């Protein structure tokens, strides 16, 4: 938030003692808060872990920009730093402040359900952004805004099936165990692959924790273990590039097709070089704008679909010129 300036009458007081400085700031802050409550929608957001990756950082920047463009909206932007306990406390703070809507990027889809319910009971609509909360919490949320991760997994399965010509032996490197995005992409991928490509054999899956170096190590293990690998599906491009690094080091990159999700700049570049074969284009800015719009609609009492997805198209070497290189 911008600096809240105490009014001049407070200023003279403030110069006399430190206490009154604090008091004047508090008064000014309170009066600001009240003023905002009168004419603007107040929307609070508690994010997962800004700064831990470029996606979340770009998301926050885009969210603030989008909010700044709206005169009718004031936002409280918080970040849980990946800590569930802190996120629950932030949710409780936002409930106390009685904001008009809360956006939550869950640090843990299961653990935040009780506090989401608390907000619901307090009459504050909750919009879940980016990755959904557990089934048990679905009754308490107004809407989920984010990518359709199951569909993304399905897209990757379709691209894999298509480019392998319907047969081959593949391996999978998944995201962090327990993370909804990871679980959904894996499920979408595996189910769709079995459906449309029964002759593609998924030999093994291992978690790569969204970490490129770990994915590289996992892939090195796969390369030792299997003489034939025709394709690799990674839960995101960051890990996908790790897998590609490993295959290149082993001199086997030419015989393998690489697919991922959440197209990263490194994945985009590898695709330009012809080494990487497909991904799903997911813009964090689009993600943020969609969440804000959904929250505004919900706060205004409009009808919003329960699952409010934003578009995440397939990107391959053939159509990549239609997309800008991702900023992260």
């Amino acid at each position, binding site marked *: 938030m911008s600096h809240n300036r105490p009014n001049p009458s407070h200023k003279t007081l403030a110069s006399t003692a430190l206490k009154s400085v604090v008091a004047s700031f508090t008064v000014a802050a309170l009066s600001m808060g009240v003023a905002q409550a009168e004419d603007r929608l107040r929307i609070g957001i508690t994010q997962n872990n800004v700064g831990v990756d*470029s996606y979340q950082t770009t998301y926050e920047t885009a969210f603030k920009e989008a909010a700044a463009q709206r005169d009718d909206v004031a936002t409280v932007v918080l970040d849980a730093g990946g800590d569930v306990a802190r996120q629950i406390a932030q949710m409780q703070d936002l409930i106390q402040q009685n904001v008009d809507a809360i956006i939550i990027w869950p640090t843990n889809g299961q653990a935040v359900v009780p506090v989401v319910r608390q907000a619901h009971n307090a009459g504050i609509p909750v919009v879940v952004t980016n990755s959904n909360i557990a089934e048990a919490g679905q009754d308490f949320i107004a809407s989920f805004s984010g990518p359709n991760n199951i569909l993304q997994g399905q897209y990757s399965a379709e691209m894999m099936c298509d480019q392998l010509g319907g047969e081959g032996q593949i391996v999978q490197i998944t995201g962090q165990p327990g993370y909804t995005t990871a679980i959904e992409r894996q499920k979408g991928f595996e189910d769709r692959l079995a459906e449309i490509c029964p002759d593609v054999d998924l030999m093994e899956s*291992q978690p790569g924790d969204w*970490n*490129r170096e770990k994915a590289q190590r996992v892939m090195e293990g796969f390369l030792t273990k299997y003489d034939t690998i025709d394709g690799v599906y990674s839960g995101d491009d960051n890990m996908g590039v790790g897998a590609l690094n490993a295959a290149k080091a082993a001199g086997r990159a030419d015989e393998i097709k690489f697919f991922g999700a959440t197209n990263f700049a490194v994945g985009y570049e590898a695709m330009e070089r012809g080494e990487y074969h497909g991904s799903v284009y997911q813009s964090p800015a689009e993600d943020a704008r969609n969440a804000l719009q959904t929250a505004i609609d919900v706060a205004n009492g409009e009808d919003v679909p329960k699952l409010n997805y934003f578009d995440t198209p397939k990107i391959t070497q053939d159509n990549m010129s239609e997309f800008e290189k991702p900023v992260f």
Partner: protein
Amino acid sequence: MKASLPMSNSSTVATDNRKRVLQFLGKHGILLAFLLCMMIFSLTTDRFLSTGNLLTVLMQVSILGTIALGVTFVVIGGNLDLSVGSLLSFATVLVVDLHDKVGPTQAIVLTIVFTLIIGAINGTLVGYLKLNSLIVTLGMLSAIQGITLIYTSGQNVDIQDQENTWFAFFGREAIFGIPVPAIIFIGLAIILQVVLLKTAFGRKVFAIGGNGVAAAFSGIYRNRMVFSTYLLSAFTTACAAIILGSRVMGSQNNVGQGYELQVLAGVILGGTSLLGGSGSIMRTVIGILILGFIQNGLLLLGYPYYAQWLVTWVVIILAVWLDIAAKRGRLLNDF
């Protein structure tokens, strides 16, 4: 050794033998555990015992192992260094980011300098101000993570021209078929083993960790020695970061997360006492290799890699138990 003390005359031959076995296990248990590990995995997976796979594991552990070399000195000196995880993140981000901005050579030099500065801060706080090393380095763990995030504002950093930089040498190339990371790791291990055992510096590190007061009375500057061990662990961490940056050609902000505990696990597994005063570089290397082979072997067997955490824990408990048992001469303690 102890078996030749006059006391042993009174004990029966059986207890004597048992003590000898236990002492042998305590001394060489880690080596036996290592061989046992290798045996189990080579019997259960046919791919395990191939030159290619062994070299892959050696390369994979080189990052962890290189850090552990420096940390071994810190631990022998009677302190801990838990900051190496985020120090690795910091240094990797720095070397990758600076690579494109100022060139590889300058990036490497600057990374080593900045990492050493952080090591010097640790060393000053623990060595000269005599603050508790656990608190200092645990605090440093978060502080450096914060610095890294501020530096990058959360963005991933990548090296643009990955194909044509000689920086690839450290993480991606091999000499006579041996990966360069492994050569750096083993090379540093040999040098530091010699430093630890054959130089005055090494003996002083043992002395301050074994009995700081006695060391001080013998004219050893404890402050300066502790300070140097932290510089050393910062230096080996910088080397590990150069390997990691070159291997991945990019870095996430939290790439070193959790390394501090894995490093410590390797050091403990190698039998270095957490109380200081004893330990060995070569045994740390074996400890780290065990960690690496457990991870690799379980992966080849098809278990998820996090099964290694459980197995590692069991192996550490066994190693520590054997160590204690050897010292008191029996497997179970009397109540």
